[in-house]
């Protein structure tokens, strides 16, 4: 009985952390969605303003639950609630945020070690930005078939994306991730855990990730994210770069697409109802 009870307690803690992370980060993204993005000259602050919230929570609690909770919160509060759902492209953000938060949380064995906290927070931001920049570059590469053939295109894409990432990192990484996390973690440590009926994290009870599997999973997820992002871009780019399509062609193409979607949905419905009736 003691084993099942300990397991159950762990489950309940995970659910609590999930709920907490989801609602807090969800609210934060909802608020940031309402603040229009600031553009100063060519420097755009496309900042995940509130990344410090899941980062802080991940360093104090179970990182996986926090990461999933944060990603779900963003999806539910700012995408679905405000109807700003961007389709399949959202998958990219969902995954990059989860990976970054999860890694930051597992790296910090002892939240009292502020140096480690700082490095992890900054590193996670850098990782998230690098992943988004990578996805952006891949998008262009994927969209333009003669990517290498267009003179100057590769250089300019790498430059602008790289510049944006570095700019974001210096600005948002420090102002919105590093400093707030350094402010919050030591203040919350030892205070927030008892409220949820948990023990504060120490080096002894810190979560231990399986490094190899973790890395593999991260890479796989990143590929999925990149794929999803490219897919979402596909429609836009195909039409843009192949503008000499005839009207008939287009109509046929759309007709095909419709047919495909309907067929897929119909198949799925059949599968689903079969599964339900079997259940």
């Amino acid at each position, binding site marked *: 009985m003691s084993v099942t009870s300990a397991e159950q307690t762990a*489950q*309940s803690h995970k*659910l*609590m952390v999930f*709920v*907490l992370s*989801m*609602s*807090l980060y969800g*609210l*934060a993204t*909802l*608020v940031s*969605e*309402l603040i*229009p993005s600031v553009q100063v000259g060519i420097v755009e602050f496309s900042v995940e303003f509130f990344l410090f919230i899941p980062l802080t929570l991940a360093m104090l609690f179970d990182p996986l639950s926090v990461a999933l909770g944060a990603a*779900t*919160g963003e*999806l*539910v*509060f700012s*995408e*679905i*609630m*405000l*109807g*700003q*759902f*961007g*389709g399949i492209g959202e998958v990219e953000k969902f995954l990059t945020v989860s990976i970054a938060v999860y890694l930051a949380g597992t790296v910090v064995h002892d939240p009292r070690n502020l140096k480690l906290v700082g490095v992890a927070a900054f590193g996670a931001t850098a990782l998230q930005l690098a992943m988004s920049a990578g996805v952006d570059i891949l998008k262009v590469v994927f969209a333009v078939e003669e990517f290498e053939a267009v003179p100057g295109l590769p250089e300019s894409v790498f430059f602008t994306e790289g510049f944006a990432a570095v700019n974001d990192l210096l600005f948002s990484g420090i*102002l*919105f991730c590093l400093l*707030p996390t350094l*402010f*919050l973690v030591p203040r*919350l440590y030892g*205070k*927030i855990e008892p*409220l*949820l*009926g948990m023990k504060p994290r120490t080096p002894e009870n810190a979560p231990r990730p399986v490094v190899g599997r973790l890395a593999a999973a991260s890479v796989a997820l990143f590929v999925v994210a990149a794929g999803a992002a490219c897919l979402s871009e596909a*429609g*836009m780019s*195909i*039409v*843009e770069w192949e*503008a000499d*399509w005839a*009207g008939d062609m*287009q*109509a046929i*193409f*759309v*007709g095909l*697409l*419709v047919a495909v*979607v309907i067929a897929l949905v119909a198949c*799925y419905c059949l599968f*689903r109802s079969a599964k*339900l009736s079997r259940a």
Partner: protein
Amino acid sequence: MLEKLSENVMDKVSIDYVRNQVLKNAYGNDDTPIAALDPRVLIVWYLFFGIAPWFMGSVPMLLAMFLFTAVTTRLARVAPLVLVIFAVGVFAQTGYMFVAALVFGGNADTLTPLLVLTLKVASCSLASITVFSGLDPDRLSSGLLWFGFPERLSFSISFAYRILPIMMEELQNILLSFRLRGRAPAHDTLLGKLRWLVYQVKTIVQSFYPLMLNMAKRSRTTVEALELKGYRYASANPDVLKIRLSSLAVGSNDAVFIAASAAYALFCLALPALLEVL
């Protein structure tokens, strides 16, 4: 003058207003024709209307699509704030280029692609607003559940709508504490404005410290209550899913909606040809 205006706008866009708008968007439109439709029908509908515009290139076709999604958005009675965000979003993505080109005397060659792009972005966004804002949260989550999305997501959606008013109020009170007891720097000069901005950002960041602790206190009771209400059993029991989804039914309204949408979509596709004939 400008100062006065911006202050006025700031006053309007108070967190109270935002809270009201979000609630209105979430709960205030559950008696619209859109909300009465079967969620599965709407999700499939979104799969088409949210994707198809990307594959269209002719302006009349896209214009027709845009008009259609605008009508459905109107039918869903979406809160004004959501429309403002939508407008800002479209403008930020492509609209500003279009306007700039217009101002600097762009010709048809430069304008058309930009107009096409803007219309695409706008129709897809409106389709998503119709479905996600127009449906009430519970029906939306049932619909997603039916399509096999994880139960955790469906619970999160319902729970988010439950917890949002509570959290908004909590955040509002904390921010008020800061506003009343703190003292924002004067913002007459440019330096003052910068300092004021920094102060505001700092306040928001700091207000998450009390918010996190307060929410932690709450979520413990919530999770215990969920356990007592058998939430964990339900996620492992396929019967529950079956019972829950049995409330979904496709009715004649849905059939009419599908038929109308399909007919309109065909009309859109045929539009360039029709215009040619005329």
